[in-house]
């Protein structure tokens, strides 16, 4: 049962954008941590409704999160009477968009439920619920899971040589699946020969790579068609997963987050070393 703000129920359901309850809220969060072993999901729930809290404490209702992935036909139901839970999911069972729907659900027959927060416009003040009927629902959360999304953003950038460029010139080309950073043959060879050095890498990240990422993000902001390229899709989904608004956040701020704050890396390998 997906969240649908226009849907109405024959009984009060505490939901965003609904006035079934006049002064109460239900909020749920789901955070995913992905590593080599699997995907850990941490769900947490909060409601200001004392009456709903009581139904859970009495064992008549539970917090429920349904985690679904349409691409892999995966669906799991997590339920608890606590305000938080954790679970490990098989990394091989999720791919693409993963949604989390959170509810408070009746698990037993509930008779004569009432709350002073229920909108008086309902008319009656007492309600019965069957098992499976929902008492509260939050908006659907979504996250994209692809192995490429958890690699450094630099993995969609490729250094390529261009014979038309002079030693210090470089260009960015976006019209293919990887972002091409074009440099002269001599420069490419020089970078490739020194790439294993951490300090060189930290300088590269803060110079051409950072500028190239800012440029790519800015172009992505201006032209959503670029999401058809692999780099565009990965970048857009990484931005989504980090809860960043592409349209309203400056490209240089987004770039810092996607690149995990490269200035700190420069500090670790160059600046601190200079002061020592």
């Amino acid at each position, binding site marked *: 049962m997906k969240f649908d703000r226009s849907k109405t129920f024959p009984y009060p359901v505490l939901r965003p954008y609904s006035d079934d309850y006049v002064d109460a809220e239900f909020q749920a969060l789901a955070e995913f941590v992905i590593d080599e072993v699997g995907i850990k999901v941490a769900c947490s729930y909060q409601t200001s409704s004392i009456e709903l809290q009581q139904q859970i404490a009495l064992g008549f209702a539970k917090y*429920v999160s349904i985690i679904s992935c349409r691409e892999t036909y995966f669906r799991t139901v997590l339920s608890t009477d606590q305000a938080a839970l954790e679970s490990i999911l098989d990394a091989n069972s999720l791919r693409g968009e993963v949604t989390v729907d959170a509810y408070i659900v009746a698990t037993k027959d509930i008779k004569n439920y009432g709350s002073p927060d229920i909108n008086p416009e309902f008319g009656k003040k007492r309600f019965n619920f069957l098992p499976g009927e929902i008492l509260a629902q939050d908006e659907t959360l979504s996250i994209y899971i692809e192995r490429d999304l958890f690699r450094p953003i630099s993995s969609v950038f490729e250094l390529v040589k261009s014979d038309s460029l002079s030693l210090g010139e470089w260009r960015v080309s976006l019209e293919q699946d990887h972002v091409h950073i074009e440099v002269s043959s001599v420069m490419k060879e020089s970078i490739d020969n020194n790439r294993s050095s951490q300090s060189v890498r930290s300088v590269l990240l803060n110079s051409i790579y950072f500028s190239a990422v800012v440029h790519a993000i800015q172009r992505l902001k201006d032209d959503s068609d670029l999401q058809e390229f692999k780099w565009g899709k990965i970048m857009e989904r990484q931005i989504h997963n980090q809860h960043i608004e592409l349209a309203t956040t400056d490209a240089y701020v987004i770039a810092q987050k996607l690149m995990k704050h490269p200035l700190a890396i420069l500090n670790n390998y160059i600046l601190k070393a200079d002061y020592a």
Partner: protein
Amino acid sequence: MLDINLFKEVTVRTLYEAVPNNLDVYRNGSFEHLLADSSLFLASACKLNEEAALQIDCTAEDDNEVACCLAVTSAVEGVTAYLARDERLWARLTHIEFLNYARTRWPIPKDDEKAISHIRKHMFARGSRGVERDNAISRLWWMTNICSKVSGLSLEQSLEAFLHQSDVRASIIERPTTSQNSVVLSAVVNKLHESYVDDQALFEREKFRGVMKRLNIEGGIRLLEALDSHEIKKVVDKVCTS
């Protein structure tokens, strides 16, 4: 057991674009010569069980669908749901190991224009529909994967009921509340199997659509995922008899 390396993205793209030039190969030839060029492939954890792969076979008269589904997971080992969304795997298998099966099961039209779109539909696996419904091998894997979640029936029985009518199958797949929820899926497929061995009345297009519509209405009021299998069975019994 043979290692199955995936086509690289660029290999898939090149083949897709070259379909018009390769029509004769698709109709009568083989792409096995590609195996000689390792730069076209990426390593994977998949293995081909050649003996089981022989069971994936059909004729112009008999698509042998249930047996092919039963064979596919043992023929291609190491495929996870994550990997099973990957066109690079299925394009490799339909071009190399299962080209004969693919062109027997999905005969290539004589008209060249029709042949191009037909080949791109059944030998590649673009998007959800391509992976789940169109590619000659991936569709077998996904139907088997869905049926493997059904309890109360053997895999063969589930496949028999699930594959009997394409309309019924599409109605189930299109509804994530049914196809993704193993308890609801089990209750529905068990009902279909009861009907399959009896009068097959539940497979009538309008009747089954009505059942799914009523199940949708039930799922719009109660969170079916929160019910146990006994409660779900009661709900499915009700929507099948009302």
